């Protein structure tokens, strides 16, 4: 169950005007198509690991703990090919624990929730620090109008601990999928930058997140109308609105912060969660749907009753 939450984004803010100048568009073009007003980007010398440590420290503080039994990092942009970034993060946080990376692209955080829950249910751990962190700016072509306005950097982290199914914060049934035949539609080869076929990705994202959301809600024994809040991967505001429309939910059920942070891949859901708590958009007891879609294609969803959490403001 969810017992701690923290997020951190690099302070360097990049405006739409700055991005637009390199892609031959303007602020209005970017806002209309993405819902993004600005995004954060890491400065040279700041890596995914740096962001992850900052978010992890906040999650530990939020849970009021100084140790965990396992550390999992969901990322597409690890600090190096090998070793994984998670062991160095664990050391930097003073944690002596097994640690590994997981890559499911923008779905990484939802896959990570399933893996962390499974570690706890298998009694391999009583508590897990799960971090979603990415520095997508390191693999973004600043002259590509399809990706440059969207992709950004950030980190979010949660502490999961053993608990009872009826407690607030307990994660319900997961619905997870992949379809590898679409890999060419959204990918970055070694040493190269992200390329995306926008039309196909948009359609697949909406259709798969909608179906997965409905499946996760039903598997947990609820109806879509029971949902109080939807925290979707912050891919594009138009995708999030389309999902709400397909699910028959009013758009005000969506927890969003894409306007200020852009698409931060594996970090986007915990970043939106932290923002949602501090902006008074998430309240204890509310039924919350979490859903994500990313390269692979990968996608998945789960639900939980929101717990009482002390969360610091995202900087």
């Amino acid at each position, binding site marked *: 169950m969810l017992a701690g939450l923290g997020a951190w984004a690099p302070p360097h803010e990049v405006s739409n005007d700055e991005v637009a100048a390199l892609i031959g568009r303007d602020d209005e073009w970017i806002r209309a198509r993405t819902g993004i007003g600005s995004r954060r980007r890491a400065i040279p010398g700041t890596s995914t690991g740096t962001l992850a440590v900052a978010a992890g420290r906040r999650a530990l503080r939020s849970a009021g703990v100084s140790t965990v039994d396992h550390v999992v990092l969901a990322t597409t942009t690890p600090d190096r090919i090998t070793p994984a970034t998670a062991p160095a993060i664990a050391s930097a946080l003073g944690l002596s624990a097994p640690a590994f990376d997981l890559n499911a692209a923008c779905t990484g955080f939802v896959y990570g929730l399933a893996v962390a829950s499974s570690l706890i249910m298998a009694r391999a751990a009583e508590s897990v620090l799960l971090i979603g962190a990415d520095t997508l700016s390191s693999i973004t072509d600043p002259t590509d109008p399809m990706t440059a306005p969207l992709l950004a950097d950030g980190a979010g982290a949660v502490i999961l601990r053993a608990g009872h199914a009826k407690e607030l914060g307990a994660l319900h049934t997961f619905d997870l999928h992949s379809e590898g035949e679409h890999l060419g539609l959204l990918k970055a080869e070694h040493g190269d930058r992200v390329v995306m076929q926008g039309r196909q990705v948009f*359609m697949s994202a*909406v259709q798969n997140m909608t179906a997965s959301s409905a499946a996760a809600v039903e598997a947990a024994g609820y109806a879509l109308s029971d949902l109080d809040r939807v925290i979707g991967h912050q891919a594009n505001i*138009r995708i999030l609105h389309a999902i709400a429309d397909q699910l028959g939910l009013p758009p005000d059920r969506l927890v969003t912060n894409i306007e200020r942070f852009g698409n931060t891949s594996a970090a986007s859901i915990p970043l939106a969660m932290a923002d949602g708590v501090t902006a008074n958009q998430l309240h204890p007891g509310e039924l919350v749907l979490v859903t994500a879609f990313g390269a692979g294609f990968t996608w998945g969803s789960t639900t939980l009753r929101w717990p009482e959490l002390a969360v610091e403001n995202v900087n």
Partner: protein
Amino acid sequence: MNENFRRLSKILERWSKVAGEDITPQSEIDDGLDIDSITRLELVLAMNKEFGHDFDDVDVFAARTVHDLVKLVPESD
């Protein structure tokens, strides 16, 4: 045909700057109704939901007028 046109006009009205009663079968989707490329995708999703049919986004993108869209709706609908 007329019923499908009415249902499509109702969908288009959500995104277009043109009022529903001013949408005609001859209205041009791009210039006349000011529907951009992402809105075309939203239109495909809305049409799928409204008509219970999986429309091909390539066909919806190829449509020039509202009449072209109406022609995509299967007869049984």
